[in-house]
């Protein structure tokens, strides 16, 4: 990869695709609204899920949304890598496996059985088997598990401005630089008792989600006993949930010094909130690993043997 090769005279050729995803990251790009026009002055999108082009052309920048959950995802991803000078993991699913990655908490056969046979509305369900249907992979992967990734733009979805800044940086031959601190650094909520050097629980009161309307909108969630993933989450989203009086759910993924988000938030909260906070206690795994299970230390069940991944190409960029 060489980001110095971009010719400023012409528009930079960009391809985008989505794998196992919800299309939200693409929507977030569109959410730039009129600013999208500024971006389109710089780049030309020559391939995307919204266009009817069969082959991925050679491009300078490839943006990949979504995780790798089936064989077709992997095929598209490898082709995208092949055709892009710079490959960008676009959004949390691509960066860390995201929401689809939670599937790794279950065995594949159980997932299929649940989806096709056991759902309450299903009568005489069968698990489809056809060469036409891409086989589900045993585990969901972040794209860096499969191919080399040059940059990532995390966020579920990444905020429009962040996407714009990243594209502009690449067009200018610069690196995409992500912030490295945690969300608390940019949180505007009042943060008092967390800062008092005294060993004690922050609060004895533990609140749960339905009580969010009763809490102080200007005060740190944790200090009010409300589970917030902000401490274990990379900043950069503009604290959008916090501003809407919703605690952070961790969608930007871990900070660069942490090995994973889930264990880290366990370590942190156990000593500062009674029982680590009620909401957390009820679903430690869903809270800690919601967005990053496939890149966590132990990314799947122990009774589910890891499938073969092509080792040579498996050199994900750990930015």
């Amino acid at each position, binding site marked *: 990869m060489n980001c110095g090769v971009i010719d400023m005279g012409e528009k930079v050729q960009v391809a985008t695709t989505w794998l196992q995803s919800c299309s939200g990251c693409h929507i977030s790009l569109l959410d730039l609204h009129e600013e999208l026009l500024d971006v389109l002055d710089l780049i030309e999108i020559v391939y995307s899920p919204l266009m009817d082009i069969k082959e991925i052309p050679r491009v300078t920048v490839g943006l990949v949304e979504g995780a790798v959950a089936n064989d077709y995802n992997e095929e598209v991803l490898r082709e995208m890598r092949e055709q892009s000078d710079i490959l960008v993991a676009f959004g949390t699913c691509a960066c860390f496996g995201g929401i689809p990655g939670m599937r790794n908490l279950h065995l594949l056969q159980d997932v299929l059985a649940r989806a096709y046979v056991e759902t309450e509305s299903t009568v005489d369900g069968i698990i489809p088997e056809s060469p036409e249907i891409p086989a589900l992979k045993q585990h969901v992967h972040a794209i860096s598990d499969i191919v080399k990734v040059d940059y990532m733009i995390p966020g579920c979805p990444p905020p429009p401005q962040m996407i714009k800044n990243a594209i502009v940086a690449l067009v200018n031959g610069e690196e995409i630089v992500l912030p490295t601190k945690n969300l*608390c650094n940019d949180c505007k909520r009042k943060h008092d008792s967390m800062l008092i050097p005294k060993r004690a629980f922050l609060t004895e009161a533990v609140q749960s989600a339905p009580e969010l309307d009763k809490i102080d909108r200007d005060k740190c969630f944790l200090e009010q006993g409300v589970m917030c993933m902000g401490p274990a989450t990379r900043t950069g989203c503009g604290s959008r949930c916090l501003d809407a009086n919703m605690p952070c759910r961790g969608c930007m993924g871990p900070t660069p010094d942490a090995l994973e988000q889930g264990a880290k938030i366990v370590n942190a909260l156990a000593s*500062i909130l009674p*029982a680590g906070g009620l909401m957390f206690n009820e679903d430690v795994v869903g809270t800690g690993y919601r967005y990053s299970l496939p890149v966590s230390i132990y990314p799947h069940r122990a009774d589910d043997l890891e499938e073969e991944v092509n080792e040579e190409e498996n050199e994900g960029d750990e930015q």
Partner: protein
Amino acid sequence: MSIGLCLCKCNRTISDVVNIDALFDWYREQGIDVMGCDELCSADCQNELLNNIRENEWSGIVIGACSPKHYETTKNQSAILQSIADAGINPNKIAFANLREQLALPNSGDGVLEKAKCLIDVAISKIEHSADVLVEEIPPRRSALIIGASISGVFAALRLADAGYKVHIVDKGEIGDFSEYITPEELAKIDVSLTCAMTPSFAGIKMHPNVVMYPETTLTDVYGRVGDYTVQLEGGEILKVGGIIVCVRDAELTSKLRPILHIDIDSEGYFRPKNPAFVVETRDPGKYLAVGDDVRSDILAADSAVLSLTSILDKNEINHIIEVSEVDEDVCGGCGTCVKTCMFHATSIDLARNVSVTDATRCVGCGNCVVACPTGARDLVRYPNSYMIDAIRILGGFKTSGASPKVLAMLCDGSGYPAADRAGLMGLTYPTGVLPLRVSCAGRVDTQFILYAFKVGFDGVFIGECPEGACHNIVGNTDLARRANLFRAVLRSRAIDTDRLRIEEISPLEGDLFVEAINEFVDELRGD
């Protein structure tokens, strides 16, 4: 960086079990300078080691010998560590492979050589992953605090005052009332009345120009290091002293003093020495215990404590190793989790820069904040994260024979590790597949490490920690328990049986309990 490896035969204790020649060849082939010796505790071997360090300009040294505890808790052995540092090796680049207490004594048979390599590789990794620690020189204060105007307290005060030290003596009650410090039975044993025995001494300290008495006073805060402590009394008065002698023998008072003084306690709730043979020394070289079982031993203990303390404070300079928890300011977002976690009030947020900072005079290097830090911005100079992970990877590479389980035993410095040493010295045995890893504290056990251990193939993770209420770092075991309670849900979600994580409370001398617990765990893992 060139690393030297010193392999000690320990007068055949090690070499009869571990093939030292094979180790020699193996590490030579890796390009590491290896030297051997019969008994590293002897002066000849120590001189040879020091010569080798100087000649080969080693920047790190792995000592494959007896337990590092041996070097840290006995004065003459810690002198060799000082000499190694003087020979040019940073204290953080001296690493140990415990080939005696935790290998040759408790293990035998096939896997021993491979396990020795694992333990040595872990020590090499520790050197490679550790940055130099800062060593600071300070002139010690020639003053002392005596806690408790008991018989030993008064004698210690007199000795120190006579030797020219400024002495502050604090007691929660009246000073001069000795009736609570001596029973009529004890009194009957000495030939004089209590009044005759103590009144002159009491008068002595009362009249002495170097002694200041603080009756009916309690302590609110003590921090600092040998040679330079800051002591706060109730009411706010601040004293600056070079050393502290604790002269209380009262379990209730001990429990009140412990979170302030940070001296370990025994199972009965009394302050305990760091080594049962050296009854006045604590793990802090500036804090001493002077409590005997009767009047005579009280006075002997006072003398011994005074002698130990003055032998340090009489020096012109004392070296301090600054082994605080460090902060990566690019990552720290000032969340304050470390501030809430630290028992020693050593961390705070620098509000102007919104980053966490560590007060080196308070930090004891326990690592609890490093584990708690949700961003990974904190790291421990003595046991860095990258070393811990690499060590687990190395130990995870050990191949056990047949169906025998592989157990990572994370052993805390305060109890688990010395208990395992003790087990070896007691001649007790356990399977070679138990791979020890020393940690500063149970509070240093990051749940990330546990997950990683299962990932690299351990069948079980055993954590040996201090008993409840007796944690070396006050709250390390409490915090581990809280973390583990939440963390078990993570194990369950990965279909890892939570019984594969075992946390066991052991006192430092309970080698038998350690072996019982570890063997039971291994049997359970094997499915017996």
